[in-house]
Every structure is written in structure tokens, then in C-alpha cells.
């Protein structure tokens, strides 16, 4: 094994880990996989929209409905959209009419509901054009459209259930380009999946998506391992699964290339056990080993793989004892496995673990650290024969002798296993190892150890039109209360009564929303009970049902701002869409709860069509049929290379679809204030953003002669203020050699504030913290764009370099490092 200090190699390698829908070029090793993925350059803001078919399910559980389904689907998409190390973002694109998007040109995801045959709950996958795109970041096959297919009949799998949500997350993963993985994350088959609604993805899923759509920071500070899996004669094994597993921590896996080589990336620095195992055999309901779509060569021929061999830990053992060290920005190469061929698949595989905190089975088993619940029920292939041994990887959790026996409730198919928790055992996930003779099976995240019971809801009642009180057991200030998948806003927690008060999201009057409590440890009230319900009574906050668009027609091939009116709009709660990727709501601002401004792009191919307008606000779904018509009329429009303008600074816009007659005939305003046009270069207009604009959204309008471009919204910011100086006494500068002292009176000058930030006779609102300790200035003196403060250092401020944080009228001043000493 050798260690390469090769960040450059890490960054340039296309031979990455995980498993995607893979193509290979002809030739032999080294193999570089060519994955199917969305072409980010074809997406605005790296964002793919998903449209949800308006048909919805046809058969619901009692009180369930389409708005709740849409809300849960939005939640599932947000799981993938929130991965920070992936560039790809997902956005709700509205409710689509059947067949409306067949000719849409913009890549997107269709969520549709089908009469699925018995035994099928959903599927998802990409549609690609079979052409390899050679990009600077590596070759790929571009996903044109993806589809997520969910069942029309959800009477037995309601929208609020763990299973419905996790199925949606899984199928979205396929739609984004991920195949099955074998480390119990969201992309594992449901057999071994250990995710829950509150922990819906694991690091393996994050790495899988980040490899397809990496941010520049994805590999920063992380490491990799690489090597080969081969038989004794040197024959490489394709489609072998290799997993890096931190004891009690993350597990990330990959499949080998046809020559047996592999690379696992995205590993946090630390010590890892590494093991190689064959794909589980093809089983009932599966088409291929492990249910993976096999890689294809350039001629479209399926490439074989998946030979059977004995599972082995690196370097060559049946138990994990040697770890491989992963260092930041390094690749630990040469972690090779030489494995023993076997003629039949391993007998032990596909194991599921359960616990019973109530009348419902929870998977994976959640056990109590106290030992109060210490048994797991397990089923899977090969468990029932004698001689089975089960061990927890990591040491602090053990299985006592005679701890494995048939489960009394179903002794023919299930076993019961007792666990003991040692002195150093803690909460978290436990990886399990199953063995018998030469069979070895590893189940990542096989158990979860918690220190308390799952939260339980006894009652949900209204305080007023917006707030509700949730009573129950196991609730605390960090418990999240979700209403049809949308988190309520925490208001207060009454510890004595065990009651949480939260603000519920907007819901339709007369509807029923489903309430679930989520603990920070991954447990939820669904572990012990069905969702609680809350009937909405049409309170005043819900009364304004109608939403309005400021225009009913937009020209094709343009982008412009549209005003949307309604009620209770809020960032993160309110989504708009037109049910087609050809009309893209690119940016939304919420200047008030009753008003939104949205920049809307209309693709050229949308001309002549009429589209629905959908608002998903909280868990309230409103659709206006035929609300927007797309015309083929020619119109000028503007685009902004930077969507943020700094008040008083120069900026540029691009003018499209109209000629600029002359500089003198040009008029440009920002929020109706004239801007000084500095010059025109072709279609580019450079100008000075008016000073003194209020920070927030602003509308840019442009006119050239008699022609007026469609308006566009941008964000306006103030130039950032800075702390120009901090002095003591009569102007002694504070430095590392002359720190600020406890009790000393300090003078602080803030520069770069807007000249009119504190009109005569007014006092700006100033907040100030030093080392996190709030300080109140005893004088505040604004003057022009400057502000002078006097304050004294409190004795509770820790000594050393402390962050000095000031806000003026809610706007943060650039942070400052202040040396502090007691005397």
C-alpha cells in the first residue's frame, strides 16, 4: 500500500467510486466510467425542476390528499437538493397537466402516478440520449428527462408514512443518476435500508450525488482509498462491492470497474475498515445481482461481472482488525484485495433488523443504551441454520453467549438477538457482522443505539389561528414537529408540562394535516403510533385563498419579473410553478407576506401553449388552470450577469431582443429611480446603481427610444460597512500588543454605511457582541456614512482574540478580531 500526496490526481480522476448508470469506452484498463447525469450547463443555476402530475393518486388513506402528497414529494426532493457538496439543486416546478411536457426541451423530472401492478410501489430512472458528451470535467451521458413513478393507490402506504417518503427519496435518487448501493443508505434496496424520515440519506448517498455534480469544495479536506479486487491468479473482478467503514461512523461504498479496480472518494479523514464483498445474488423481484443496471460498453452491450467470492476485510481477514488511514486531500492507493472464488453465493445476506418500541416494527432496530431494550429481531437469507455468529463492529456493543435464538413469534423465519452495551458504548449507529463457516456478511448501520424512547404525541390543539400546542412524551425544545412533512416553527417548550408550541404551516381550510414529532436522534412518533391529525378550521390566516399573477401572457424566449399576490407567503414555505420545465421560476423574492416577485424564464419552444399556475404554500396547494399563456410576440428583455447589485456601485445588464438606438435615448431605472448610464457596448449596458436604495429586491426597467424591455428583478445590497478602528482612551489603537482590557472604555468607528442611514433626529438600532457576549454601547453617534460607538469591555469576555460583531439596523458589519486581556 502506498500513499500518494496527489490532490491533483484526485481532482482529475473520472474513475470514481459509488455506482451510477455507467457506460465504458472500448478498450482495457484503466477504465474510466462514463456516468449518466444531468448536464449542469443546460440548467439555469444548476437547478433541475420537477413537475408533479395533476392526476395524483386515485386511492388514498382516510384524511390523506393530493396536497399532502405534493408536500411530501417536495420534502423528498429537498433532501437531495440540500447536499452542500453537490452543485445540483432541485426546484418544485408545479403541477403538470397529463402529457403537457412531452415536447419540453429543458431537462427536468416528471413525477407521475400510475396504476402499478401488485407488488410494485414505485420506480424511478433517467432517460438519456445515447451520446457521450466530452466535457472538461469528464465524459458523461446527458440525462434528457427523468421520471419518478409513484403508485396511484396509496391507501396502505399513506403520504405521511416513513415508507412513502423514503420511497420517494429513493426514486428521486435514481432520477438524478444514482443506482443501488450496498451500505444501507437511501440508495440501498429497502431490504437493508437503515434510513428514517428524519435521517433520510447517509454519507454514502451524499458522496454518490457529489461525485456526479461536485462543488469545488467537495473534495476539500477529504480523502480517498483505491485499489483492486482480484482472484489469486490476478484476474480482476468487476462489480465487486468495496466499502470503507469507520467503526461506529460513516460507511461509503463503490463497485469495481471491469478490471477490478476501484476508488472510494469523499471520505472524512480517519481510520477505516475496508472490506470487499460480492453482489448479493439475483433474488425474487430482481432482474440482476443486487438489482443494479449493469454497465454497457460503447456498442450498448451489457458488461458482465459480479462473480462470487468470499467476503474479506483488508488486507486479508474474516474479521475487521486492521484499519486503513485516510488523510485529507490524499489518496491511499494500493489497498488491494486478493479473494477466494466460490461456486455458490454466500448463504447469509439481505438481513433486516427490527425492534418493537410499540405495536409497530421499526427498521433498523433501535436499542436503548441503558439496556432497557436490548434485543433485535432479524430476518434474512441464511440466518436460520445453526452456528450463526453475530458481532458488532467496534467493540463496545457485544452479543452475549446464547444471545441468538429463534424468535418466538415466528421461529421459522426470524431470529432474536440480545446485545450488551459496554462501558464505552455510546449512542449512534452500529455496524453488524454475521458469520458462519466461510460465509461472512456485513450489515452497515444494522442497529441504532439511542438513549431515550421515541417522541410520542398525545394531543394536538390550536392555541390560535396559527399556533398549535403539541403534548406528549419524549418532547423537548429540539423536537421537530412536522405537518404533512413541513416543519412547524418553534415557539416555546413547557418543560414541566412536556408541551411544545409551534406555528403550523399554512393549510387549506377544512383540510386535515398529519402531525409527526421527530427527535434529534433519528426517532419519530411514527415509531410507536400513526400520525396525529389536526383539522384546519379556516381561520383568518387561511382565508385568503386566491393567488394572482400580474400578467396572463408572457412572450416565449424571454425572462421577466412577474408579481404574484396571495397570502402568508414565506421564504422556504412557498413555491411556485407552471407545471413545465419550459417555464422556469428562476428566482423569487417575498417583499411581504402578501406579495412575491418572481423572475420567470419562458423557453422559446413554449410559444402557443397555456399552462397551469401552482402555488404550494406550506401544505396548501392552489392550482389555477390555464393561468399563463405563452405568446410568440417579439419582445425585448434584459438579463443581469450578476443578480445582485450594490447600491452606488457600477453594474451591467444585457439587453436582448431589441436594438439600442443611441446612448442618449436610453433610460434605465432601478426601483423607479433613474440610473446613470455609463456606456453601451453592443447589447451590454453599464450603469451606476442609484445610491441610497433600500436593501432587498428591486425592479430594473430599461427603455431605448420607444421600445421598452420586459422588467427584471434583482437583489440590491448596501456596500458592506467595516469597523475602521477600535481605540482606547484618547486614541490608543488596539493591537495584539495593546489589547483591549476589562472595564476599559473603547471607541469604535464603523465606516461604509449609507450616507442616509440615520436621518437627523433618528437613532440607528445597534447590536454588538464580543466573544458572543452582548455589549450595549453607551453612546451611539451617527455621522454621514460613519458611526461612532463607545462601550466598555465586560469582564465575562474570554481573554484572547475575540470576534467583535456589530449590526446596524439589522445589517451586519464585517466582523472584526479584537484582542482582549483582563488587565
Amino acid at each position: 500500500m502506498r500513499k500518494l500526496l496527489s490532490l491533483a490526481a484526485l481532482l482529475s480522476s473520472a474513475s470514481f467510486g459509488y455506482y451510477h448508470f455507467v457506460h465504458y469506452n472500448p478498450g482495457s484498463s484503466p477504465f474510466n466510467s462514463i456516468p449518466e447525469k444531468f448536464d449542469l450547463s443546460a440548467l439555469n443555476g444548476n437547478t433541475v425542476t420537477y413537475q408533479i402530475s395533476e392526476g395524483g393518486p386515485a386511492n388514498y388513506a382516510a384524511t390523506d390528499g393530493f396536497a399532502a402528497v405534493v408536500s411530501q414529494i417536495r420534502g423528498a426532493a429537498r433532501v437531495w437538493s440540500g447536499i452542500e457538496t453537490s452543485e445540483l439543486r432541485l426546484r418544485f416546478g408545479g403541477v403538470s397537466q397529463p402529457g403537457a411536457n412531452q415536447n419540453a426541451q429543458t431537462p427536468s423530472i416528471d413525477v407521475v402516478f400510475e396504476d402499478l401492478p401488485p407488488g410494485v410501489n414505485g420506480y424511478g430512472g433517467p432517460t438519456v440520449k445515447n451520446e457521450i458528451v466530452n466535457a472538461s470535467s469528464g465524459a458523461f451521458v446527458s440525462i434528457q428527462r427523468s421520471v419518478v413513478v409513484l403508485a396511484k393507490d396509496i391507501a396502505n402506504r399513506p403520504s405521511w408514512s416513513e415508507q412513502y417518503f423514503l420511497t420517494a427519496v429513493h426514486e428521486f435518487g435514481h432520477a438524478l443518476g444514482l443506482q443501488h448501493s450496498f451500505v444501507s443508505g437511501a440508495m440501498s434496496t429497502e431490504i437493508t435500508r437503515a434510513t428514517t424520515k428524519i435521517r433520510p440519506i447517509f454519507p454514502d448517498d451524499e458522496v454518490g450525488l457529489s461525485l456526479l455534480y461536485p462543488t469545488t469544495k467537495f473534495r476539500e479536506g477529504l480523502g480517498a482509498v483505491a485499489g483492486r479486487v482480484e482472484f489469486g491468479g490476478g484476474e480482476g473482478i468487476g462489480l465487486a462491492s468495496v466499502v470503507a467503514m469507520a467503526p461506529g461512523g460513516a460507511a461509503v461504498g463503490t463497485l469495481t470497474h471491469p478490471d477490478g479496480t476501484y476508488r472510494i472518494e469523499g471520505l472524512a479523514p480517519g481510520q477505516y475498515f475496508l472490506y470487499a464483498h460480492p453482489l448479493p445474488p439475483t433474488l425474487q423481484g430482481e432482474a440482476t445481482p443486487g438489482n443494479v443496471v449493469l454497465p454497457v460498453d460503447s456498442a450498448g452491450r451489457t458488461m458482465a461481472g459480479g462473480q462470487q467470492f468470499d467476503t474479506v476485510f483488508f488486507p486479508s481477514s474474516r474479521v475487521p482488525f486492521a484499519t486503513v488511514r485516510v488523510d485529507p486531500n490524499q489518496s491511499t492507493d494500493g489497498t488491494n484485495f486478493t479473494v477466494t472464488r466460490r461456486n455458490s453465493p454466500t448463504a447469509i445476506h439481505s438481513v433486516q433488523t427490527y425492534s418493537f418500541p410499540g405495536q409497530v416494527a421499526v427498521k433498523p432496530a433501535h436499542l436503548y443504551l441503558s439496556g432497557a431494550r436490548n434485543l433485535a429481531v432479524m430476518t434474512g437469507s441464511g440466518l436460520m441454520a445453526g452456528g450463526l455468529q453475530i458481532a458488532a463492529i467496534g467493540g463496545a456493543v457485544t452479543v452475549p453467549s446464547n444471545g441468538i435464538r429463534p424468535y418466538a413469534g415466528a421461529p421459522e423465519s426470524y431470529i432474536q438477538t440480545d446485545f450488551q452495551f459496554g462501558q464505552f458504548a455510546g449512542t449512534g449507529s452500529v455496524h453488524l457482522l454475521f458469520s458462519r463457516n466461510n460465509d461472512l456478511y456485513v450489515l452497515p448501520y444494522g442497529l441504532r443505539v439511542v438513549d431515550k424512547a421515541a417522541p410520542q404525541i398525545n394531543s394536538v390543539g390550536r392555541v390560535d389561528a396559527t399556533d398549535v400546542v403539541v403534548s406528549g412524551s419524549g418532547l423537548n425544545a429540539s423536537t421537530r414537529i412536522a405537518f404533512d412533512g413541513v416543519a412547524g416553527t418553534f415557539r416555546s417548550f413547557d418543560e414541566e408540562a412536556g408541551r411544545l408550541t409551534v406555528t403550523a404551516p399554512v393549510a387549506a381550510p377544512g383540510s386535515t394535516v398529519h402531525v409527526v414529532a421527530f427527535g434529534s436522534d433519528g426517532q419519530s412518533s411514527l415509531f410507536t403510533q400513526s400520525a396525529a391529525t389536526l383539522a384546519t378550521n379556516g381561520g383568518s390566516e387561511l382565508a385568503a385563498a386566491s393567488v394572482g399573477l400580474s400578467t396572463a401572457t408572457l412572450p416565449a424566449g424571454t425572462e421577466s419579473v412577474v408579481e404574484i399576490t396571495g397570502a402568508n407567503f414565506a421564504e422556504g414555505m412557498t413555491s411556485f410553478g407552471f407545471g413545465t420545465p419550459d417555464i422556469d421560476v428562476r428566482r423569487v423574492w417575498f417583499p411581504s407576506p402578501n406579495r412575491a416577485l418572481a423572475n420567470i424564464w419562458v423557453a422559446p419552444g413554449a410559444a402557443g401553449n397555456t399552462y397551469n399556475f401552482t402555488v404550494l404554500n406550506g401544505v396548501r396547494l392552489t392550482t389555477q388552470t390555464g393561468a399563463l399563456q405563452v405568446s410568440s410576440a417579439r419582445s425585448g428583455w434584459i438579463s443581469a450577469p450578476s443578480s445582485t447589485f450594490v447600491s452606488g456601485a457600477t453594474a451591467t445588464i444585457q439587453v436582448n431582443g431589441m436594438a439600442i438606438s443611441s446612448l442618449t435615448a436610453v433610460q434605465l431605472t432601478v426601483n423607479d429611480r433613474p440610473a446613470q448610464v455609463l456606456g453601451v457596448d453592443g447589447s451590454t449596458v453599464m450603469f451606476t446603481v442609484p445610491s441610497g436604495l433600500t436593501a432587498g429586491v428591486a425592479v430594473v426597467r430599461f427603455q431605448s427610444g420607444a421600445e421598452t424591455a420586459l422588467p427584471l428583478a434583482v437583489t440590491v445590497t448596501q456596500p458592506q460597512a467595516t469597523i475602521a478602528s477600535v481605540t482606547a482612551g484618547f486614541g490608543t489603537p488596539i493591537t495584539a500588543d495593546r489589547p483591549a482590557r476589562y472595564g476599559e472604555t473603547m471607541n469604535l468607528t464603523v465606516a461604509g454605511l449609507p450616507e442616509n442611514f440615520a436621518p437627523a433626529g433618528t437613532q440607528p438600532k445597534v447590536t454588538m457582541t464580543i466573544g458572543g457576549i452582548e455589549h450595549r454601547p453607551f453612546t451611539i453617534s451617527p455621522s454621514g456614512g460613519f458611526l461612532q460607538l463607545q462601550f466598555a469591555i465586560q469582564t465575562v469576555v474570554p481573554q484572547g482574540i475575540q470576534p467583535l460583531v456589530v449590526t446596524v439596523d439589522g445589517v451586519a458589519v464585517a466582523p472584526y478580531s479584537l484582542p482582549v486581556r483582563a488587565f
Partner: protein
Amino acid sequence: MKMLVTVLLALATTLTGTTLEKLSFDEMVAKSTQIVRGRIALSNVRQHGAIYYSHYSVQVSEQFKGPAARTIDVVLPGGTIGRSQQTFSGVPTFPADTELVLFLWTSKAGLTHIIGLTQGVFSVSKNAAGQTIFSRESIRDGLVDGRTGRPATDGGMRFTATEFSTRVSRGATK
């Protein structure tokens, strides 16, 4: 305890590829609209809304359940149209002219699917005694041997044609 076991078993039968739910033989019999033996061949791939469906033509040689038909149009999701390919994990493909026994289900939209994707597919072969055998790959969790009552793990499903016919008749009349 009985209730616990019932809940546990119900949960344990859920598996995904795709997201699948494991069905017992009797459940497949009960839920199918047709059970046929025949030769299957891909006829074409057509787009139905957002989904590509591969249409297979089944030349029926024997009918175990459902209305009589000489040929049946059966669909599986995914396929290739022109240069566009739609892929779903877990969907089987069949070599041309493969003889199979299929558990089929026709949706309200009139599309005939295979139950549980690959779950409703049995292969046809002969045993050493020359009897026709219908069999399916192994299943995930334990089976109970009907004669001994002992667990029989990973055994798959395997019937002679006569046994199969009897089981279907019995299941269909339940």
C-alpha cells in the same frame, strides 16, 4: 404477540428495486387478472406520457387464469426509442422467444403488467423425469417446508406443471 408478528411480517415483505413488495404465490394468484404460459418477444417500445413501456407480445400456449387469449400485449417500464433510452433498476428483459409462465395484471388504463416485475415470472424447463417444471429464482426470506414444517431458506419456487395448475386453481377459488 400475534399482532406483533403480523405487523413484522407485513413490513418484512417490502423490498425495493424500484420499490417492490414481495407477494406470496397465493397472493399473486389472487391479484393476477391472467396467468398464462407462452412465448414472449419484444414487439416495440412506446411512450405513454412520461414513461417508456417495452411492449412484449406473448403467444399463449396455456391459460391458467383469466379470459382466454391467443396473444397478449404485456408491458414492462423502460426501453429505447430512437436514440433515447429510459432505464429503471430491477426491470427484467427477455431474450426473444423465451417460454415463460407469467402472472399478469391489467390496469384500468388497459396496460397489462407482470405482477411485481420479476416476481410474476416463472421459467419453463424439464426435469430428469421429463416432467415440465415451472420455477422461479430464490426468494429473500425464509420459506416453510409444507411437509416438515421446518424452515427452508432460499429455496425459490418450483412446481411441476400439474402441481402449478392445482395451486392456481386452489388459489383462484379461495
